């Protein structure tokens, strides 16, 4: 109750209510998240159950076009799978991988940033050198290379089975340095403040100071970059799947749906690519808009690399 009151009177909620773009993108995002979580209930068909597909329904156009079918509102893909259901399931996979990857990034980055910033010294220069080196290589290149290597190492069949955890690891490991830098920068700002000194004087252990006192005060910028990181992670997942290094078409994400539709665009079946693409763009756009709003409101001094 107390936290609720604090939230109700907060500046965050105040500025949220006065920003129509933030309200709009927040509602679109929450609708998408709810739909993707409830996918088995909401979707008209089970997109993973191949026994319900009928190849005769393949490449049915959307319902408002000629020869459209009322059963398939947005048409079907080449195997006769309902495109709307495939998109809902696909959004779910993309969201799962995006959030999982960002959690991994945040975990690695926060640990590195906290140790590096609070302990300092040789450890700091070592960790920061590693961060610098990885930062100088674009994360998409790292992700493409590492997923290609995993695909070679596991073989196509096993890679398809393990795709979700592997993609989380690949995208997580490829894009953590931004967290390390941000957290380190705010730890450096916090660690000489009086409350840390006071904690040290009354003899609280170093670990406890680091995790219970310094860490919570560095989380605001982490929250802000996290929104952008989720958008980037979803985009990298789509890119990897589009290259054939991500989710297989039997368990499609939005990226693999776009890839599968691309092969049939020359025969005029534009909808297989178009609708998943539009969904992906809207999804990323609302996250980015929310991130922009959050950054303006919280206005932390972000480390711009």
């Amino acid at each position, binding site marked *: 109750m107390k936290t609720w009151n604090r939230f109700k009177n907060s500046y965050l909620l105040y500025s949220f209510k006065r920003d129509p773009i933030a309200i709009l993108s927040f509602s679109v995002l929450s609708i998408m998240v709810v739909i993707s979580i409830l996918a088995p209930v909401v979707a008209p068909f089970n997109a993973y159950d191949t026994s319900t597909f009928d190849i005769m329904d393949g490449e049915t156009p959307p319902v408002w076009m000629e020869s459209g079918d009322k059963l398939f509102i947005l048409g079907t893909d080449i195997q006769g799978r309902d495109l709307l259901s495939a998109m809902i399931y696909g959004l779910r996979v993309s969201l799962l991988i995006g959030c999982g990857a960002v959690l991994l990034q945040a975990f690695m980055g926060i640990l590195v940033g906290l140790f590096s910033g609070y302990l300092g010294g040789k450890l700091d220069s070592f960790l920061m050198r590693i961060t610098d080196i990885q930062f100088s290589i674009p994360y998409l290149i790292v992700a493409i290379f590492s997923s290609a290597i995993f695909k070679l190492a596991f073989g196509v069949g096993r890679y398809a089975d393990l795709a979700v955890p592997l993609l989380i690891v690949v995208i997580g490991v490829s894009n953590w340095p931004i967290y390390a830098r941000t957290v380190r920068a705010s730890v450096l700002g916090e660690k000489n403040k009086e409350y840390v000194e006071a904690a040290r004087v009354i003899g609280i252990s170093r670990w406890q100071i680091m995790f219970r006192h310094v860490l919570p005060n560095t989380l605001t910028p982490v929250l802000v970059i996290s929104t952008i990181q989720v958008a980037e992670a979803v985009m990298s997942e789509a890119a990897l799947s589009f290259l054939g290094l991500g989710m297989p078409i039997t368990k499609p994400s939005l990226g693999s749906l776009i890839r599968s539709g691309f092969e049939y*665009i020359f025969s005029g079946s534009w909808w297989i690519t178009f609708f998943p693409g539009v969904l992906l763009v809207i999804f990323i756009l609302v996250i980015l808009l929310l991130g922009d709003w959050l950054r303006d409101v919280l206005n932390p001094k972000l480390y711009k690399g």
Partner: protein
Amino acid sequence: MFAFIARRIIQAIFVMLIISLVGFSIQHHIGDPIRDLVGERVTPAEREEIRDQLGLNDPFYTQYFRFVKKACQGDLGLSFFYKKPALEVIASKAPATIELVIVTTIILILISIPGGIYAAIYPKSWFSRIVMAASTVGVAIPVFLTAIMLIYLFSVELNWLPSYGRGETVNVWGWESGFFTWDGLKHLVLPSVSLSSIMLPLFIRLVRAEMMEVLETEYIKFAWAKGLHSKRVWFVHAFKNTLLPVITVFGVQMGILFAFTILTETVFQWQGMGFMFLEAVERSDTSLLVAYLVVVGVIFVVVNTVVDIVYGFVNPMVRIAGIK
């Protein structure tokens, strides 16, 4: 200054060693050179003998040193599929990628600089608002989606431009170029437009932000007070000072552009290095994959080091910040 350059070069060598170690372990664990050399019918005993002869039973570090030594001499192994030295294969694919990047860069410069300057000078005009809104949405559109939509519109529906391949190329001093034929140029349009679409929003915003910041400075106010012609203030005094940050970001972004060429080349079946890389993955052509990894690593490390050193000359703050 000397210490700064030396430190940067040592770091570059260190990074290259790490990349080569990664490359070598891939080759060591995934690739099977015996398979590349002989067929299925060779007995295990004979295979073992060949392994011994090739030194594949040596300890890891011996083999790694051999790999690095050979790599320094420009030998990155044979491509299993092409039956040619991997470096030769990459060199034959490089012109396609380089031409794509050149045309993309030209498009980027021609659109982002005038667009950004205009949006900075008249921030309230409808054109600037459209540019800013478009760049917000543009960031969210993946490059392969732009490419597919362009193909659908201009190749499938309107049938104006070709949708895949490089078209007719001419051999100019050993460089397979598409610049000199009408067909080759037509094939370049869609790939380069989609590749530049991914960078354009960022660049327009960057030029606009830098230009607006410069327009607020005292010396620009002084230039206005002196009664200089507005064109002189904008293009000579203000624009010149927005160039340095723009060039720096451009240098950094070239690496990211490289990553996106892989995506663009896949969509357009563009016979460049990125397309070759994905084919190598599909064919499990490990040596070609490792060679590509090392080549990209070298390009990155060299570009980053050069940019850093040049920046060190221009901006002394960078030099000093590194010293603890």
